[in-house]
């Protein structure tokens, strides 16, 4: 059940799987880095950009190859999603949506890799049985929050750019009750609405992937019990894996779609 060689209790096993490879001597302080999250997210991002860039450079306008077809299909899909929802002219939103969709999907896809493979490999490479290694970046609250934060900054930027600062402030204070006395109430309501956008984005993705990873870990625990439960575990893992294909794709799509919706709301002038 684990590659440590020593017998771990289930609690230790789960704890071990849920701990990041953090830098710094003080793992609880702010200035620590989750090296594994950064490694996988940046690595996958670079892989995505390199792949799409190389296809884009070689893109032929004639009969496309299979890889180009696949990439173009994704681009078309994202582009049509953006065009359906967002009616303004903005050169940023479509590439942003593509980056979010593909990148989030790839990071989610790390959940498909059996839970012990990459951590065991990392322990082998590091030569340290206690090496912590988490491979699903989107199960890291920092990663999902940073994505949501990027989107949030863009929401505020475009709100102010399109409506002006006064327009943005008016939107926050004069809705839904357009009475002067109600301004504080309006502000509380609208501020919560505004803040809820990035928080819900981040927590939805994190929650889904964290839960998915946890269930994989729990199923992995079954292999250590006995033969019958282990056999059951194989079926469960397969079932959860197939179901999870839907979840990771859906979560990537939802993140992309909500980003588009929020940004198109930011562009709307009331």
């Amino acid at each position, binding site marked *: 059940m684990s590659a440590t060689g020593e017998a771990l209790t289930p609690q230790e096993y789960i704890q071990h799987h849920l701990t990041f490879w953090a830098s710094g001597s003080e793992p609880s302080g702010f200035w620590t*880095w989750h090296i594994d999250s950064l490694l996988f997210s940046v690595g996958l*991002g670079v892989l995505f950009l390199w792949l799409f860039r190389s296809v*884009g450079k070689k*893109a032929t306008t004639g009969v496309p190859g299979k890889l*180009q077809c696949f990439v173009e299909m994704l*681009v078309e899909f994202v582009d049509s999603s953006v065009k359906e929802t967002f009616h303004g002219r903005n050169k940023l939103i479509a*590439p942003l949506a593509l*980056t979010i969709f593909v990148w989030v999907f790839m990071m989610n896809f790390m959940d498909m890799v059996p839970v012990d493979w990459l951590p065991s490999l990392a322990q082998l490479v590091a030569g340290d049985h206690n090496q912590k290694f988490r491979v699903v970046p989107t199960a890291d609250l920092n*990663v999902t929050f940073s994505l949501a934060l990027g989107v949030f900054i863009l929401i505020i930027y475009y709100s102010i750019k399109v409506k002006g600062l006064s327009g943005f402030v008016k939107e926050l204070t004069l809705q839904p009750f357009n009475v002067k006395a109600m301004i504080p109430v309006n502000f509380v309501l609208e501020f919560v609405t505004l803040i809820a956008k990035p928080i819900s984005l981040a927590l939805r993705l994190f929650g889904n992937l964290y839960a998915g990873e946890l269930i994989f870990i729990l199923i992995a625990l079954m292999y250590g019990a006995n033969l019958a439960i282990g056999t059951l575990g194989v079926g469960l893992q397969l079932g959860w894996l197939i179901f999870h294909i839907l979840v990771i794709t859906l979560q990537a799509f939802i993140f992309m779609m909500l980003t588009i919706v929020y940004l198109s709301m930011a562009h709307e002038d009331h």
Partner: protein
Amino acid sequence: MNINATLIGQTLAFIIFVWFCMKFVWPPLMSAIEERQKRIADGLANADRAAKDLELAREKASDQLKDAKATANEIIESANKRKAQIIDEAKAEADAERAKIIAQGQAEIEAERNRVKEELRQQVSALALAGAEKILERSIDEAAQSDIIAKLVAEI
């Protein structure tokens, strides 16, 4: 579960990726797709135009065929007309020629007859004269009787 500096690094990475995607990934892919869409649209439009052209050409060809048939009929008709005309002309010419030849023959015959007649008359007159000479050899002076002989000759 704690929020830490990973957030900052990750946000930076996110910004850089989006920027890179916007600058270097999206434009070539989109332009390739749009270019191909344009080419396909052009191809479809061309196919439509070609079908229309074909239809037109077919109509034109059938029209020309009709025209050609009509012209051929006209030519045949005029040729027939011309043939009849030529035959008529030839007939008329031949008739005229025949009439001329006949007339000429007749004239020649007439002239010959006249000549022969004259010759015969001369000979008969000479014979009559000779006969009369023989009969009247002794008594009648030739000069005195010549007016009678001339009268006879004229009567023949």
